[in-house]
C-alpha cells in the first residue's frame, strides 16, 4: 500500500525553496525570541513531506512563513522558482497569490470554519478570490466530492464531528485550487476515526491530484506515510530524509524528545530478540506490520500463539 511516490515527484523543479530562513518573535518588552534559525529546504512538486519536532521547535512558524502570514527577518522564500519574500518586501498581490497556491489547514477544526452552512464555508475562499458564481458552485461541489462530504453540503457546520469539520476545512482550501496544502497539526484534535479519514483525504490529494503536502504532526505513524520526513529542533533543521532513514535512527530522534512509530519500534525490538527476524525495508502501518510479523513468524517457524 505504501508505494514510494518518488517517480511522480519532479525533483528538478522545487515548488517551494527556502534559503537560510530566520524569524524571531518580539514580545511586549521588545525582547526577541528566535523561533527559526537558518532553515534551508527545498520541496519538489507533488512531494508529501511530514514535519516533526517537539513543542516550540518552530513548525507552526515555518508554516506561517510559507504562506506569508508572517514575513521572514532573514532568508529567501521561492515559490515555483519565483522569489516571493525577502530581501524585497512583497506586495499585497504577491502575498495573496502565494496564499492561494499554498493553502493551509489549521489545528482547531472549530476556529477555521467561517460560515454556518458547509457549502457556504467551502465557497468562502473562491468568493474572496472573486471567482464567478457558476464556477464557485462547480468548485464547491467538486471539492466536497474530493473529501467525501458532498452529502453534507447543506449541513450545519457546528453539528459535524471533528473529522468532518477538518474535511470541510480541507474542501475549503481545495476550492481555491492550491498546488500545495500545509496541515498544521490538523489531526491532533481528532479521534482515531477522524484522523484516519483526514489522513486518507491527504493521501488522496497527494496521489491523485498531485498536490504537494506539508504535514506537521506529532504522530509518528502519520509521518511514516510521507515521502519525506523533516525534523525541526529549536528552530533548526535537525534531520531530513525518507521515513525509513529517519526512523532507523531511534536514538537520534529520542535526543530531540521524539519517538519512532510504535510499529517500527516493535519491529526493531523483535529483530533484537528473535533470531533471524528481518526488519522490512519500508515502514508499515499497524495493519501491515501485524501481517508482516505473522508472515515472518511463519517463515521462522514460530507459532504466534
Amino acid at each position: 500500500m505504501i508505494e514510494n511516490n518518488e517517480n511522480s515527484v519532479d525533483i528538478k523543479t522545487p515548488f517551494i525553496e527556502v534559503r537560510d530562513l530566520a524569524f524571531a518573535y518580539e514580545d511586549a518588552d521588545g525582547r526577541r525570541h528566535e523561533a527559526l534559525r537558518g532553515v534551508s529546504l527545498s520541496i519538489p512538486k507533488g512531494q508529501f513531506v511530514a514535519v516533526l519536532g517537539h513543542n516550540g521547535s518552530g513548525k507552526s512558524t515555518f508554516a506561517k512563513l510559507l504562506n506569508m502570514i508572517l514575513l521572514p527577518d532573514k532568508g529567501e522564500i521561492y515559490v515555483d522558482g519565483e522569489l516571493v519574500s525577502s530581501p524585497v518586501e512583497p506586495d499585497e498581490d504577491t502575498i495573496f497569490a502565494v496564499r492561494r497556491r499554498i493553502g493551509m489547514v489549521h489545528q482547531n477544526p472549530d476556529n477555521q470554519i467561517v460560515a454556518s452552512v458547509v457549502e457556504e464555508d467551502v465557497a468562502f475562499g473562491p468568493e474572496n478570490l472573486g471567482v464567478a458564481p457558476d464556477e464557485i458552485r462547480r468548485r464547491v461541489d467538486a471539492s466536497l466530492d474530493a473529501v467525501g462530504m458532498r452529502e453534507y453540503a447543506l449541513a450545519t457546520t457546528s453539528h459535524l464531528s471533528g473529522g468532518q469539520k477538518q474535511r470541510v476545512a480541507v474542501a475549503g482550501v481545495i476550492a481555491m485550487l492550491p498546488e500545495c496544502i500545509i496541515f498544521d497539526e490538523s489531526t491532533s484534535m481528532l479521534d482515531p476515526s477522524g484522523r484516519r479519514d483526514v489522513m486518507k483525504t491527504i493521501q488522496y490529494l497527494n496521489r491523485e491530484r498531485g498536490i504537494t503536502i506539508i504535514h506537521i504532526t506529532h504522530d509518528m505513524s502519520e509521518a511514516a506515510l510521507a515521502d519525506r520526513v523533516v525534523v525541526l529542533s529549536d528552530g533548526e533543521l535537525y534531520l531530513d530524509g525518507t521515513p525509513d532513514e529517519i526512523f532507523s535512527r531511534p536514538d537520534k530522534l529520542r535526543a530531540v524528545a521524539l519517538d519512532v512509530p510504535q510499529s517500527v519500534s516493535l519491529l526493531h525490538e523483535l529483530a533484537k530478540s528473535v533470531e533471524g527476524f528481518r526488519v522490512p525495508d519500508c515502514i508499515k502501518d499497524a495493519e501491515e506490520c501485524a501481517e508482516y510479523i505473522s508472515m515472518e513468524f511463519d517463515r521462522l517457524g514460530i507459532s504466534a500463539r
Partner: protein
Amino acid sequence: MRDITLGQYFPGNSALHKMDPRAKLILTVIFIVVIFVARSVSALLLLSAVTIGMMCSTGISPRVYLRGIKPIMFVIVFTTILNLFMTRGDELLFEWGIIHIYRDGVNNAILMVVRITLLVLGSCVFLSYTTSPISLTDGLESLLRPLSKIHVPVHEFSMIMTIALRFIPTLIEETDKIMSAQKARGADFSSGGLIKRAKALLPVLIPLFVSAFKRADELAVAMECRCYRGGEGRTRMKVLRYHARDGVMLGIMALTVAAVVIANIYVPIYRLR
C-alpha cells in the same frame, strides 16, 4: 441547547419561505408602515385577515405564533391600561374615584392591542420565522449595499453577523462545558440571591472570554489564509435573484395597502384618535 442558533427560524417550503430575502425585507417595511396607516376598524380587520392568511400559508403551527407574542405581553397590558384610563371621550362607561373609562378608551385600547399584535406577528411571519438568519444577512447586505458608497461598512456588518451566527453554537457548547467543569469543582449556579449568582458566573465568563479571544485570533489567521481581504473584489456563490413569486407577493401587499387606504377613508367605522 445547540439549536438556539436557528433562533426563530422554522424551515419550510411555503411561498413565503422561498421568497427572496430582499423582497421579504421590503414587504415587512411596507407592512409596518401600513399598520400605522390603518386607523379604522375596517382597515385593521382587513389587515388582520391578510396576516392570518399569510400565517396559515406558512404551515407553521399557531402555537408557535402565540409563543411569539408572549414576550410582548407586558407591552400589550401596559398599552391597554394606558389607553383605557387616559383616553377622554363623550360617553362615560365607568367611574370610580379618579378613574374614568370612556367608550373611546375601550375602543382605542382594543385597536392598539390589535396593532401591536399585528406588528409582532407580521415581522414573525414575513421575516424571523420564514427566513434563515443567513439569507436575512445576505438580503440586508444586498439591500444596503448602496450605502457603502457613503462609507457605511455594510460588508463588514454582514461578515460580523455571519461569524456571530457561526460561533453562537460553539460558544454555547463551551459555556456548557465550563459550567459542568466548575460544577464538578463544587460551584453552585442555582442558589442564592442575584448578586451571589452573578458572582458564581464569573469563573465561567472569564475562561469563556479568554477562549473567545483565542478563537478570534485563530479565525482571523484562518481567514487571511483563505485570501480574505474585505468586501472589495469579493463575489458570492449564491446570487440573489427575484422570482415571479416575489412579484406576486409584493402585488398582494400593494393591493392590501390600497384596500387599507380605501377602508380608512370610506368605511370609517371607528377611527383611532
